[in-house]
């Protein structure tokens, strides 16, 4: 058996990639994975519904972390999907027998080690399988503080759940990982890229424009049924915190990335300042969630204007972080 070591992370996809690369000798933190895969974002897509609620996301599309890390760090990786459960199970067993650790996409709902409270139909969860004992799989699920076990039946059902973002049994693993990578140019490039895309998204549903769009939609809740309005507001908080974002919809994790980036560039002051600003913006996102929670609890009428204004303020303050990040000139 391989001597894999489980580590607790904030988020599933970035956590799997960080653990996987570390196992292959490339020591790279979760925030670094998150930053280098350009994963920070914001999207509000009212015409795509999940459980009757509009799609709200604080990060990029599922699987983009895996794909961007592969591309940006030039890591040779294999991604395999399967047309049948049997083929998917056999391939997993084969890879484990070879001593590999394998990333897998799965539904959350069918994983029996998840507590009932958070088992929802979300098909883009990620986990690492590092060994098998008979019909039980030893799993490093990044959002759990300890490694877990899952039986064959349950794992298979989760890997082959149908519907939106169906995992189709997706397995992924690196073929060759460089032991040392000069991260500097990649960090510099991605900091520039994310700042530009957040500030100047061409579509009104993403980036800072997406936040302002959501803020306007919150105002319109006034005319909706109160029960719906409360569920809508609660949905925002759930997307921000519940799915495992490291707090404040990945903003805290990104602040950590900026701090690491600053250290990489001999304690660059602009990046250190940007990290501090992002941490403060994260605190504001937490305040925003607190405002919502209070209004859900309260029997009184909801002050939609105040909640909407708060989000407008956040988008304004977050824009300052990206502008700060654009001041950074890498000497690489």
């Amino acid at each position, binding site marked *: 058996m391989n001597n894999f070591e489980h580590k607790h992370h904030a988020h599933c996809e970035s956590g799997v990639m960080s653990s996987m690369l570390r196992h292959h000798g490339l020591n790279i933190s979760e925030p670094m994975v998150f930053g280098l895969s350009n994963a920070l974002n914001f999207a509000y897509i009212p015409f795509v519904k999940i459980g009757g609620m509009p799609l709200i996301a604080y990060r990029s599309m599922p699987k983009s972390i895996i794909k961007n890390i592969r591309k940006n760090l030039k890591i040779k990786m294999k991604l395999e999907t399967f047309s049948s459960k049997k083929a998917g199970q056999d391939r997993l067993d084969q890879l484990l027998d070879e001593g590999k650790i394998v990333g897998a996409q799965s539904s959350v709902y069918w994983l029996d080690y998840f507590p009932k*409270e958070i088992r929802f*139909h979300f098909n883009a969860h990620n986990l690492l399988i590092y060994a098998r004992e008979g019909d039980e799989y030893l799993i490093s699920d990044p959002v759990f*503080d300890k490694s877990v076990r899952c039986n064959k039946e349950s794992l298979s059902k989760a890997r082959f759940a149908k519907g939106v973002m169906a995992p189709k049994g997706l397995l992924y693993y690196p073929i060759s990982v460089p032991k040392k990578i000069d991260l500097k140019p990649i960090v510099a490039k991605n900091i520039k890229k994310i700042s530009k895309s957040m500030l100047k998204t061409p579509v009104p549903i993403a980036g800072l424009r997406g936040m302002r769009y959501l803020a306007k939609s919150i105002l319109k809740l006034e005319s909706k049924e109160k029960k719906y309005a409360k569920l809508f507001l*609660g949905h925002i908080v*759930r997307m921000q915190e*519940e799915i495992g974002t490291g707090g404040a919809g990945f903003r805290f994790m990104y602040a950590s990335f900026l*701090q690491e980036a600053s250290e990489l560039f001999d304690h660059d002051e602009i990046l250190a300042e940007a990290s*501090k600003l992002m941490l403060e913006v994260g605190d504001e996102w937490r305040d925003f969630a607190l405002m919502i929670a209070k209004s859900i609890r309260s029997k009184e009428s909801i002050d939609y204007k105040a909640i909407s204004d708060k989000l407008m303020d956040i988008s304004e303050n977050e824009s300052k972080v990206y502008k700060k990040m654009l001041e950074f000139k890498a000497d690489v």
Partner: protein
Amino acid sequence: MDINSVPQDDSTTYASMKKAIYAAGKNGKMQTVGSSGWDVEEIATKAALDEIENSIQNAYEEVKFKKKSPLYYHMYDARMDLLVLAQSTGFFQWTIKRHFKPEVFAKLSEKKLLEYCDVLGKTLDEIKTIPEDRDE
């Protein structure tokens, strides 16, 4: 957020799990801290869970009084809605709606029933009935 401000609210929705939160420690150095819960998040999650529970209970009663087929209950009980069930089975929403009618459901082919069994995680016997009583 400072590591000392990371909430430790023992939320029931965390089910004794811990979530890793990034926060600033000594000299502002960022690290992860395990959080046992946050009241704010718990309120939001519970509101969603209550809504699901209401749908299941309503569905249970409608099936019990023969207004809807057992499929209607099992869909909600598996935390799905019409959209998710349609996406999972590949059936049209209007087809599934017809299958909510007890008389249509009673005549469904085994093939179609097995399709529902597969995505809802039920056996053929289970999907044709509902439990005597619900204790949740």
